[in-house]
């Protein structure tokens, strides 16, 4: 299991946080996700055989947020 932190801009309230957690945790390979509204990011634990940070980032962008991977 690997961990990645995705910076997420555009979250305005708690339901944004919940939406992201719900949608991303449904994705194959995602073991857990914890999104922080205050820190503008999400910490995702994933299986590298099934998904990758790029994939997770674009899934979040698909929802209408600005996402970027931290170096």
């Amino acid at each position, binding site marked *: 299991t690997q961990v990645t932190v995705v910076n997420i801009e555009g979250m*305005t*309230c708690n*339901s*944004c946080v919940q*939406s992201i957690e719900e*949608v991303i945790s449904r994705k194959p390979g995602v073991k857990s996700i914890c999104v922080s509204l205050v820190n503008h990011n999400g910490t995702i634990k994933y299986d590298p055989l099934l998904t990758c940070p790029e994939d997770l980032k674009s899934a979040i962008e*698909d*929802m*209408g*947020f600005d996402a970027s991977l931290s170096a």
Partner: protein
Amino acid sequence: MPAAAMPKHKFSIDMTCEGCSSLVTHVLSKLGGVQFETDLLNKKVCIDSEHSADTLLATLKKNGNSISYLGEK
């Protein structure tokens, strides 16, 4: 198909602020072929579209908010 002939679909979506409704706007504009109005106050979205209700529902579900189909109008 002329716009007037397109079926109108109504959905109830749990939106709590402008941010939430702009996400709905985002996924719908990305889908294309839709004309819609979001009603934040009543947590409803009215969509004029030739897409099926199932397609619209699947699109809106990308946002993950609790959502339900209220029917055609």
